[in-house]
C-alpha cells in the first residue's frame, strides 16, 4: 500500500515534470529585411507580433531600430500567425500563417518585407527619404554650431525636416502615424489631419461652416499652387543667414522664400496682408525668436483664422547638425483666449542635398474641389 502510494506520487511528479517540459516556452528571433536584403533600420515603431491560432494569445516585440533584429521570447508552444505591421506606405505589412513554435525551441527567421511605398506618394510620407538624408549628419561626431562674426549662432545650411519626436505637441509632424496600406498621407501631418482643432470664437466657427472647403483659398490653396503660411517645413529647406536678414528657402513651396529681418526693425505700420506675413527676429541668448504678423485670411492657418493671427518661432541650433524650432500660434481675432497651436520642427543637416527648383504651376492638374474637406486630406 505504501509502495503504491509512493509510486503514484512519483508518477504524478513525473507527469508534472513532463507537463512542465512540454510547456517550456519557445522563442522566435530574427531580422527584418527589406527587398534588397538590408536590415530595416531607423524605422520607429516597427514590431513583430504572434497570434496563437488556438488561444488567440498575443506575443509582440519591437524591432531594434539600429539592427532590424527582433526577439519574441516566452512564446508558448503552439501554432501562430505572424505579422510584422510596419505601416503601409513604406512597407507592406508582412504576414505569415501557421508558424509552429515548439517547446523550448527557438525559431530563427528572416522576415523580408515588400515595398509598400508608391513612387506616386513619395511626397506624402517620405520616411526613407528623410532618414536617408539625415543619416550622414547623424553619424558624425558632435560638433558645436557655427557662429556668425558677432558670435550669434548661424543657421545657414540645408536641412531636412526629420519628423515628429515623442513628446512633441500634437500627434507629431510627419511620423504621427502610419498611412493606410498601399500609400497615402500619414495621419497627423503631411497632408492628412488637416484642420487642427482649436476653439473658435462663434463668428469664426460660423464662417468656417459656411466656407468649408469651397473656393481657391484656405485648405485648397495649395491645390492650385498658392503659398502656405510657413514655407515648406517639408522635406528640405534652407537657411541663409546674413547679419541683417535670415532667408528661409524651401523646396516644394510658393514663393519658395521668406525673409526674417534681424536688424531690429519693428513690424511695419502700413502693410498689405500677405500669405507669409512679416517676420522679425531678435536674440535671447542663443535662441532666435521670430515674430510674424500680417498674414492674410486666405492662407491656411488652423481651421480658420483672422488677420490678427500671430506666430512665434523659437529657433535654436544646439550643435552642428541639429536645428530645433518651436512654433506657437495664437489668434485673438478668431480663436478663443488661450487657444494655441503648437508645433515642433526637428531639423537635421541634409549633407549633400541642395534645394531644387520647384515650379508648381507648370503642369498642375488639380481642380478646385467644391465638397467640404474631410479628415482625409
Amino acid at each position, binding site marked *: 500500500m505504501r509502495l503504491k502510494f509512493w509510486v503514484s506520487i512519483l508518477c504524478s511528479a513525473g507527469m508534472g515534470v513532463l507537463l512542465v517540459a512540454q510547456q517550456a516556452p519557445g522563442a522566435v528571433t530574427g531580422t527584418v529585411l*527589406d527587398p*534588397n536584403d*538590408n536590415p530595416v*533600420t531607423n524605422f520607429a515603431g516597427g514590431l513583430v507580433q504572434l497570434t496563437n491560432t488556438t488561444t488567440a494569445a498575443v506575443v509582440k516585440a519591437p524591432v531594434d531600430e539600429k539592427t532590424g533584429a527582433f526577439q519574441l521570447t516566452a512564446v508558448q508552444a503552439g501554432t501562430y500567425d505572424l505579422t510584422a505591421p510596419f505601416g*503601409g506606405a513604406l512597407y507592406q505589412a508582412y504576414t505569415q500563417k501557421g508558424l509552429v513554435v515548439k517547446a523550448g525551441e527557438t525559431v530563427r527567421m528572416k522576415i523580408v518585407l515588400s*515595398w*509598400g511605398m*508608391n*513612387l*506616386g*506618394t*513619395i*511626397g506624402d510620407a517620405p520616411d526613407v527619404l528623410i532618414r*536617408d*538624408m539625415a543619416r550622414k549628419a547623424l553619424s558624425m561626431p558632435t560638433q558645436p554650431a557655427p557662429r556668425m562674426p558677432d558670435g550669434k549662432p548661424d543657421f545657414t545650411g*540645408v536641412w531636412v525636416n526629420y519628423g515628429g519626436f515623442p513628446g*512633441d*505637441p500634437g*500627434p*507629431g*509632424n510627419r511620423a504621427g502615424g502610419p*498611412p493606410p496600406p*498601399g*500609400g497615402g*498621407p500619414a495621419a497627423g*501631418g*503631411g*497632408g*492628412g*489631419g*488637416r*484642420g487642427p*482643432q*482649436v*476653439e473658435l470664437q462663434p463668428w469664426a466657427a460660423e464662417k468656417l461652416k459656411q466656407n468649408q472647403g469651397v473656393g481657391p483659398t484656405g485648405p485648397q490653396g*495649395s*491645390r492650385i*499652387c*498658392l503659398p502656405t503660411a*510657413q514655407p515648406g*517645413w*517639408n*522635406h528640405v529647406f534652407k537657411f541663409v543667414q546674413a547679419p541683417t536678414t535670415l532667408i528661409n528657402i524651401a523646396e*516644394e*513651396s510658393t514663393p519658395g522664400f521668406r525673409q526674417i529681418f534681424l536688424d531690429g526693425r519693428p513690424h511695419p505700420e502700413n502693410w498689405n496682408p500677405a500669405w507669409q506675413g512679416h517676420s522679425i527676429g531678435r536674440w535671447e541668448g542663443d535662441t532666435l525668436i521670430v515674430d510674424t504678423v500680417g498674414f492674410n485670411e486666405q492662407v491656411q492657418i488652423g481651421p480658420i483664422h483672422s488677420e490678427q493671427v500671430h506666430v512665434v518661432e523659437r529657433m535654436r541650433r544646439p550643435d552642428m547638425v541639429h536645428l530645433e524650432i518651436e512654433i506657437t500660434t495664437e489668434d485673438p481675432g478668431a480663436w478663443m483666449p488661450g*487657444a*494655441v*497651436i*503648437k508645433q515642433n520642427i526637428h531639423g537635421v543637416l541634409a549633407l*549633400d*542635398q*541642395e534645394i531644387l*527648383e*520647384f*515650379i*508648381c504651376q507648370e*503642369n498642375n*492638374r*488639380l481642380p478646385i474641389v467644391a465638397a467640404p474637406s474631410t479628415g482625409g*486630406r
Partner: protein
Amino acid sequence: MTSVGMRVWWMVLVLLVASVATEAHHSFAAEYDSSKPVTVTGTVTKVEWTNPHARFYVDTKEPDGSISHWGFELGSPNLLIRYGFTRDLLKVGSEITVEGFQAKDASKVANTKTVKLPDGKVMSAGSSADLADTK
C-alpha cells in the same frame, strides 16, 4: 472662475499646425483606391517630367486585341531624382511594367507604386541605398 473661463480651460487644445504640405498637395486616399492594385505592361507613349507630379502614359494590349491607354502619376521630379529615378530612365517606346493603385473612379489612371524598366530594374520609393546627392 467664470463659465467662459472654465470653458476655455476645458477647451484649450494644444495641437499640431497642419503640417505644411507639398504645394498642390492632394491626398492619395481622395483620388486612388488602395484596394484596387493594378499591374500594367506596355509601351511608354509620353512622359511629363514636371512638377508638382511627374506623369507618364502607357499603351497596353488587352486580351481581345484592343489597346488601353493608361496614365500614371509619380511624385515630384525633385524627389524622384533623390531616389535615383532620373528623367532619362523612362523612354518613349520602351516596354515597362507598372504596379500601381487605380483611380477611385475606375478610369485608366493609377498612382504609381513601382516601375520595372526594360533592363529588369525595379524603381520604387523605398530603397535604403544611399540617396543621390543633389548638391
